[in-house]
């Protein structure tokens, strides 16, 4: 498939190009609407504080979507993303910047795939996403 990063140039231990994004409350609201997830912990600060949060938080799935974008950009196409998973360890708060990083931990020449170990941290220094893992198909 065209547009995919070539497998031949990849070495184990190689770092994925990091992706950073400042996430505003407006973006969280847009995500709630687009994903059809109106849970008030993402939208209503008073409700969020009532369940023990410091205020509204970004959807874990929004954090994961930004992680997926980091992987997609590195691969060159979303079509190369075969598996993606992570743990939502800490909340990302509105106004913070999330930074997604990863590195190649294994390489399968026969199937043309590599496995990336992934994580994401917030500008506050919290590990937002942990145990992240993606299997991606690369190009010739």
């Amino acid at each position, binding site marked *: 498939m065209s*547009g995919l990063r070539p497998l031949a140039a990849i070495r184990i231990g190689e770092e994925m190009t990091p992706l950073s*994004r*400042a*996430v*505003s409350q407006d*973006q969280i609201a*847009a*995500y709630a*609407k*687009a*994903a*059809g*997830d109106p*849970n008030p912990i993402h939208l209503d600060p008073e409700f969020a504080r009532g*369940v023990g949060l410091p205020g509204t938080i970004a*959807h*874990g*799935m*929004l954090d*994961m*979507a*930004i992680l*997926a*974008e980091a*992987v*997609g*950009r590195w691969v*060159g*196409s*979303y*079509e*190369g*993303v*075969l*598996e*993606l*998973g*992570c*743990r*939502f360890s800490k909340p990302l708060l509105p106004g913070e910047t999330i930074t997604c990083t990863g590195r190649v931990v294994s390489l399968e020449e026969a199937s043309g795939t590599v496995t990336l170990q992934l994580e994401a941290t917030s500008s506050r220094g919290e590990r937002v996403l942990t*145990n992240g*893992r993606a*299997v991606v198909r690369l190009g010739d």
Partner: protein
Amino acid sequence: MLDPSHVGRRYEAPAEVVAAERVSAYAAAVAGPDAVFSAGSVPPTFAAVYCLMPALGQVFADPELGIDLAGLIHVEQSFEWASPVHPGDALLASAEVAAVESKRGLIFLTVDLAAVDGAGDTVCRGRSLLLFRGGGR
């Protein structure tokens, strides 16, 4: 109240067509202030829209489980795709309760997810780990 006797319960959501305008709105919401990245198929986590939300919605609506969404925390999520998803695909989402575990007053629910296309082929599988706090409402 959720308990291990619910393991094995299966749920199906109504079939839905992946709408191009929903994909665009989703991609724009993920991009926020930045340029939308849209190379290839729909964003992988658009599975939240065609699989996760509709399938979990069925689980949450089951009165036998008595789930209180106010204490819900999404702990882990994984997906795998057998083939890329594109606008226009008609997909049927389903869920199966894979595990219910109680630890120190917290209930952990594991749900297996799938999205099947019109030909009956599974295009996406997923697993959600959800945590329900308290239950003291």
